[in-house]
Each structure stands twice: as C-alpha cells, then as structure tokens.
C-alpha cells in the first residue's frame, strides 16, 4: 500500500504541541458577548485589529484600489493575467517605501530586492531552503515563535539550535549565549548556517538595542553565517526606545552583506494576515535571484498586490496610519499592563508587539514545566482565557505566558481583565485595596470615553462571522 511520505505522516507540522490545546478549547467554546458570554476569550492570537476603521475609510475613498469596482475594472484583465514572479513594480515600490517609513526613513529599501512569498510563513521556509541543506541548522534565541519549528524545519530537514536567553537580564541575547549555542552545535556535529532573530521579539514584545545588534552582526560575520532578521512587528513599536533595524546597523558596522536578509509581512503591522503578503529582502544577489524563482510556490495574488500598491503609495495615509496604529497599541498596552499590575501580575517591560510577556512564576506550585502546564490548564478551563504557555515558545524558565491584547475590542478586554482579577482574588495572589479599585474604575471610565472616540459601530465582537484560526490550526 502506497503510504504517505515521512514528512506528511510525521509530526513536523507541530500541531500536536500543547500550544494548540488552547486553540481547541477556544474553538469548541468561543466567547461572544451576547451568544456565549462564558466562552473562552482568545488571547493567544497575535492579531492587530485596532485600525480597521481607519483603513476602511481609505477604501471608501479609493474604489479604484479594489480593481473590481467601476473605477478599477479597467485594470482587471491585466492584473488577473499578471503572474510574473518579479511582482508588480508598483507593489514592490510601495512595499519598499513602506518599509523605509516604518524605519523612520533612516534607510532606503531597493524595490528590486523585494521578493514575494506566501506570508512570512512562506518566506521563512523559502529562505531556509535556499540557505541550508538538510541536517544543517539555524541558531534561534529563546523564547521564539512556535511556528518556526514548522516553518524552518518541516519540509526542509533543517534543524533549530536554541540560544538560551534568561529572565535575569530580561532575556537579552548575549554574546556568551550565542557562542555557547554555536559550540554546542559543533559538538553535536551540526553545521550552523545562520542565526534567526525576531526583532521586535515575539513573544517578548521588546526590541534589540543597538549594542546587541552590533554584537550579533559581528558574531555572524566572524562565523561567516547568515543573519535572518524577522522584522514582522517593525511598525508595532509604540514607545521609546526607537526601533533599530538590521538594515541600519549594516550601514554602521563592517560586515559581509551577502549574509544579511530580512523577512517581512503585512500580517501584523497592517493587520492583513488573510491577504498573505510575505516579503524576503536580501542583500545577497544570489539569494534574491533564487528566492525569486522559488516564490512561484507562493506568489501574492495580483488582486492583493494591486490593492496594497494603491494603499501604500498613499503617503498621507501611510504616515497617518503608522502614527495612529502606534497610539492605539500604546493605549491598549498601557491599560492592560497597568490593570494587571493592580492585581499583582507583572510582565516583561516591553514597547512593541501585539502581546505582553506575562510573569506568573509566583503562581506556580513548583518551578517546573509540569506546574506551568497545570496552571495553564486552569487559565484555559477555569478563567476561560486562551493564553500561550512559555514552554511552547521554548522558554528556558517555566512560569511565563504570552498574552495578546490587540485582537479584541475594549469590552472584551474588560471582560478578560475582570476574569483575571477574579481569579487572582480567589488565589489570594494579591490583596487589592479598596481605593486602588476605585482609581482603576475611574480610569476605566475615562479610558472608555477615549476609546469611544475610536470605536466604530458594528465592531463589537472578536468573534467574526467567519471562523477564525491562527496560521496553524489544530484539528483532529
């Protein structure tokens, strides 16, 4: 009997990890403010839902961007036929300009180095296929996005070697940690081909400072290995310090540019995961050429290229969007972290991303990952929040959880906070003085007033009429 391939039959897709048990709980009992008020609130999905009203206003004013309207239909045929893997020139120019703006125009990106891919998921796999052979490895600082286990390894046969980062220094990537990981790989006879960093970090929500970036660039240069910078959250940096991209660092330090590559996407910064816009930007000509050919396996729909080209060519819109998005993220982040601190829950100080790295170590019954899993089960089934346990991100220390805050409306956020507060009260984790409660309530009211300015009618529920899932969805 012709069996499936090992790749298809194995677990390399990563969906059997406990990370996805949370999804399952959410899928079977999703929160809805009126239909299912006791359902599980989704806080495991790193989506940016805060700026759709602003984007919609732009769409209403620009019917030609939608290519199928009376104003846009004259472009329908040529767009529908356009399958050139170079991508539309106007699309690449718009993306290059957007990437530059997100970095404060401190660097310029060359549209001819922009290569499309099927989301950042497709971009990572494609870059891995081109840079490493089966059995070779990339170093990845922990904690890291669980999807990398699938994206970089599953069909490529490449390995991931963790670079251990610890809470004692706020999970900084140290030179020692890099060297240690590299040596460990050598001892295990694994050839290291590159280092993958996510900056801003998922799940930490922090950015890498200049010194760390310089140290990283010097490390990879010395070892003659590639540096892949996943900058998918670049525009979500909502507070000082300012984001520093690899593209800026290589202007400041000597390095072999053939080793430098950036992965990008519009899924987080713009909130468009459904449109599958992934980008590979490399300073290595051969890699640009090869990935371009390989991008045939995951080109961006020309209909979407057309829309994005129109939208991101509008300088006013882009400038305003970047500012507005940051403001909303800042507000949400501030309110959420403040509310958590009021009930005695701390989190890693962060200034970017769509989530916080929540510290629940003191709630663990023991300093073990089993205890972390137990606590997590409680959070899902009793508190009814889907959060992501640190172990699924390969965190070295138990007790950390990633909690997303940008994928829901304000009311749902309030409900989530209420549940957390009730849980903490029950567990006596923190005593909440009466006056502090009042202060928080007044703050809530004033926040609501500010938020009402931004809320649009009709957007009440995170539970969309269409089934929502993360990029990787657990299904039996």
């Amino acid at each position, binding site marked *: 009997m012709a069996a499936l391939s090992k790749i298809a039959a194995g677990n390399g897709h990563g969906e059997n990890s406990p990370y996805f048990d949370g999804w399952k709980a959410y899928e079977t009992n999703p929160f809805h403010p009126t239909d299912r008020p006791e359902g599980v609130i989704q806080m495991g999905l790193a989506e940016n839902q805060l700026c759709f009203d602003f984007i919609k206003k732009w769409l209403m004013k620009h019917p030609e961007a939608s290519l*199928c309207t009376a104003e846009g239909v004259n472009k329908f045929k040529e767009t529908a036929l356009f399958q050139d893997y170079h991508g539309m020139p106007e699309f690449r120019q718009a993306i290059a300009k957007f990437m530059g703006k997100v970095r404060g125009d401190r660097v310029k990106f060359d549209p001819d180095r922009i290569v499309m891919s099927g989301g950042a998921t497709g971009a990572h796999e494609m870059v891995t296929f081109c840079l490493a052979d089966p059995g070779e490895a990339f170093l990845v600082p922990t904690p890291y996005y669980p999807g990398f286990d699938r994206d970089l390894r599953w069909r490529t046969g490449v390995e991931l070697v963790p670079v251990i980062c610890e809470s004692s220094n706020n999970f900084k990537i140290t030179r020692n940690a890099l060297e240690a990981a590299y040596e460990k790989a050598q001892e295990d006879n694994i050839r290291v081909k590159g280092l993958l960093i996510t900056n801003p970090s998922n799940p930490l929500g922090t950015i890498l400072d200049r010194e760390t970036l310089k140290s990283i660039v010097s490390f990879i240069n010395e070892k003659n290995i590639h540096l892949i910078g996943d900058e998918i959250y670049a525009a979500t940096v909502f507070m000082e310090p300012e984001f520093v991209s690899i593209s800026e660092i290589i202007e400041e330090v000597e390095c072999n540019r053939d080793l430098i590559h950036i992965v990008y996407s519009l899924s987080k910064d713009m909130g468009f995961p459904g449109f599958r816009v992934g980008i590979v930007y490399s300073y290595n000509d051969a890699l640009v050429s090869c990935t371009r050919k390989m991008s045939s396996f995951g080109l961006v729909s020309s*209909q979407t290229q057309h829309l994005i080209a129109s939208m991101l060519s509008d300088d006013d819109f882009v400038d305003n969007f970047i500012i507005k998005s940051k403001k909303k993220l800042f507000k949400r982040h501030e309110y959420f972290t403040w509310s958590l601190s009021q009930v005695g829950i701390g989190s890693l100080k962060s200034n970017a991303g769509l989530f916080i790295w929540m510290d629940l170590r003191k709630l663990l019954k023991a300093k073990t990952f089993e205890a972390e899993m137990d606590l997590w089960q409680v959070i899902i089934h009793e508190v009814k929040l889907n959060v992501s346990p640190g172990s699924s991100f390969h965190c070295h220390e138990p007790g950390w959880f990633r909690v997303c805050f940008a994928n829901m409306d304000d009311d749902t956020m309030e409900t989530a906070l209420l549940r957390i507060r009730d849980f903490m009260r029950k567990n006596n984790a923190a005593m909440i003085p009466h006056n502090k409660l009042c202060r928080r309530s007044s703050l809530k009211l004033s926040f609501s007033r500010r938020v009402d300015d931004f809320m649009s009618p009709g957007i009440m529920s995170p539970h969309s*009429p269409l089934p929502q899932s993360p990029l990787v969805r657990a299904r039996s």
Partner: protein
Amino acid sequence: MLLSHFCLKASYSLYENLKEIDIYQRAKEMELLSRKATCKSHGQDSSSFLGCQEYEKNAYDEVKNPEGIIQMGLAENQLSFDLLESWLAKNPDAAGFKRDGQSIFRELALFQDYHGLPTFKKALVDFMAEIRGNKVTFDPNHIVLTAGATSANETLMFCLAEQGDAFLLPTPYYPGFDRDLKWRTGVEIVPIQCTSSNRFQITKSALEEAYQQAQKKNLRVKGVLVTNPSNPLGTTMTRAELDLLINFITDKEIHLISDEIYSGTVFSSRAFVSIMEVLKDRNLENTDVWDRVHIVYSLSKDLGLPGFRVGAIYSNDPIVVAAATKMSSFGLVSSQTQYLLSAMLSDKKFTKEYISKNHKRLQNRQSKLVSGLKKAGICCLESNAGLFCWVDMRHLLSSNTFEAEMELWKRIVYDVKLNISPGSSCHCTEPGWFRVCFANMPEDTLKLAMQRLKSFVSSITINNQSDKDLKNARRRSRNKWGWFRVCLANRPDDTLKLAVQRLKSFVSSITINNLSDKDLKKARRRTRNKWVFRLSFQSFHGRQQDER
C-alpha cells in the same frame, strides 16, 4: 545539460545569463547557499523560459512595435474577460468587500484559516462538477486550497513521496513539472515515452517500460502523474487510457495524480472524461485505489486568472487532505481573492453561460490556428482542448535531430518573430514538434502570426522542391526523411550503370535489425517508406553547373 548550454549560446539574453551564472558561481564557491539554491532544478534555463525572455525584450505591439515577437508560448486564456468584467459590473458587493451591503473587509483581512473560506470551497467544487457535466460530485471537505497549481503539485509530492522516490509522467509534459515536482522535494521524474505513432497515447508497454526504468535506477515509484486534458498535446485522455491507468496503479499499489487544470477548456463535442468518473463507473468508490487518486485543479486556465493564484488539491484520502491542508500554510490563497471568486462561482447562471461561451470561443480560435497552419503547409495533432496546438514541423527540420529542432526554433523566434515552445522543452522523444498557443492574443495578431509563418515556410524548400512537390512527397511518404535527388543526365551511360551497381551493393549491406533482403522488401512494402529512392529525370541542358 546539453540543452541548456545550447540555449545559452543561442540566446540574446546571454549577458543576463552570464551574470546569473557568475552570481551563482560565486555563491557556490563561498558555500553560502544551499545545494537546492545553486542547482539547476528550477528549470529556468530551459528553452521555453528563454523564449519568454526574448519576447520580453522585443514584444509585439500592433502600434508601437509591429515587427516585434508575437507571444505564442504562453498558455493563457484571454478570450473571455468581457464575461468576467460584466459580471463584476453587475455585482458591486463582491467587488467592494461587502456582503449584503455591510463591509466585511476586516473579517476578510483577518481570515487566514488554512481550511479556506467555506463558501469558496463549495462554489469551487460545484464549478468542478459542472465542468464535468455533473457526472461526478466533489466534497468541499476534500479540497485543499493552494497558491496556484504550481504549489498544489509540489505539495502533493511532499505528501506522497520523498527524496529517492519517483513519479512516472507521460511525455511530452509541461516543462514546469521539472521544477514543481522535483526541485525542493528531491523526487525524480521518470518519463513514460509516448510517440506520434499512436497520437502520443499512453500504452501499457510504455507504462511498464517506465516502471522498469525507474527500478533500474533504484528509484521507488510512488505514482503516476498525468495531465488531462494534456499540456502540450491539447487532447483529452480516452476512457481506455484512463482504465489502463487505474489497472496499472492498482497492480503496482501506487498513486495517481490527475492534473485537470485544463478541464474547462474542452471545446469539442467529445466530452471530457475525468478520472473520478471512471472510478465511479467501475464501482471503485471506497476501495484502496479510490484513496490513491488525487486531482489538481486551478482557475488559471479555465477562468484565465493566473495572477490570482488559485489552485486546489482534491483527494479522496482524508489523511492526504489533512497533511496537504497543513502544508498549504506555505501558500494560501488570499482571502480577498477567495471572497471575490466565491461570489462569482456561486452564481450558477454566470458559470453556465461562461462555460458555454468560453468553449465556443476556444473552438473558434483553435480552428483559426489550425487552418492558418494548414495554409502554411503545417499540420498539427488533432485536439479538442487546451489553449494550444501540438504542431508538426518535422518536415521543416534539416535533420531528424534535436539540434535541428533548436535551429528551427531559433529561426522561428528571431527571424519569424514568433515565440513558440519546442517539443524538447516538453521532453518529447521525437524532434520537430512545437506547442503553439492561440488563446492569449487578439484574432488579428493570430492572423499576422500565421502570415509570418506561411512566408517563412515558403522560403524554405528541401532540395529546391516546390511547395507542391513538397506536399506531394510528404503525403506519399508520411516520413519526411529519406528523399534524395539523384541526377542522371549528366553522366555517360556506363558511369550511370556503375553508380547503380554501387548503390545496390550498399543497400544490400544495410539490414534493419538483421533483416534479410527478402524481409527488407517485405518491411518496406509494409511501411511504405523505410527506404525510398526517387530518381528524377531532369533536363540540365539549360542550367549552369552550380545549379545542379
């Protein structure tokens, strides 16, 4: 690869290719890239790609560049856009991210579920059934959406085979398969040799021969992949062929992938028979073989929307569906596109009209190409589908070799200024066949292309024979080879006798497969054209020496 070097020499894009070679060479030396990155399995050195490059440099435009190269190497369907555009005009909701007047932009922008939009999958399977005359139905839960058929075919390879395994493919086949099936997967392709002697149909012996070949190379055969309707032949598979395939995969316990990307382009009354129909008719549902048959589909050809990247895998095996679904994360269909097309394909009135009109237009256009070619003295394989014809230019080759095919192709691209695809790029075993597309240009452009071709053919004659003689000779012999002009009136009688004696000794010494003279005669009589010598008497008195 002999072919790619040859094409590099021939191509005007030499600089670009040299530059690329240099880039890859440096990368290889520095060992910076993977083996996959620096190998040639991306297939971009093949002549069909090079032809497209040449076209890009000197593209025909009726007004701006009337002497430019006409693109006939791209299998696109441009004949029915007016139908799509008028549907869009009547359906503003789909166009404007709205449902029942309400904006659903946000929901669409966030929708990244690899299971796909349920309404789109339902509309897509219904459309697939409609194309098959509703003789089969498809379950939306068994369809997996991918970024084009390119991604679908690769994903199926990843699911069904590994490095060191092989799939059998009938030749000639779509050149892109060399990249899609082999590049990143490490799977091999072993050809099932098909020949013009039986219109390139698949035979049992060819299948067995291919299977043996794979075994000899120590490759484990995991399945057969066919394209039905065929690219580049433009023909649909017969029921007998489909039965043969089912028997073969049952016997060998391997998979069958049927790439039915052109199923909606079948324009003749001889209907398209899908593999699913045959399985159903043979009551093979819910048997082992049922689970090993998979279909690949796309909207790039039938609807003419290659830019939208809409591909699909349909499998009866839920395990394959589950694995492929997870893998589709690497190339999902944009939700914006899924939504637009779900609205369009759910409109049954529209799909019925589209399918019918599209067929008529394709048939009309194909017949124009066929008659245009005929006027140029060129035949093609009788076809009933596709966006191209499989054209027989064997008689125009200077020799029965692939080098001669490349020479002819170069002349057609650079001198006649038509970009067509040489059969060798499709792994055809016989030189002289070319794929010529007809649905990717206005009718006037097709007419012009045929005129250019006719002029070109008129300018070539073999041994200065007139067109008429050429036709007669071709009609009589069917084989374009073996004609020699032998002058008789320029020698004394004795010398002529000596010449004939020498010729006779020579022929006696040649045997085909050790046949005796008698068998040789019999063989010649049977085939009519194995060795034919025509002696022509011509008067040379009035001619100069060098004309003789």
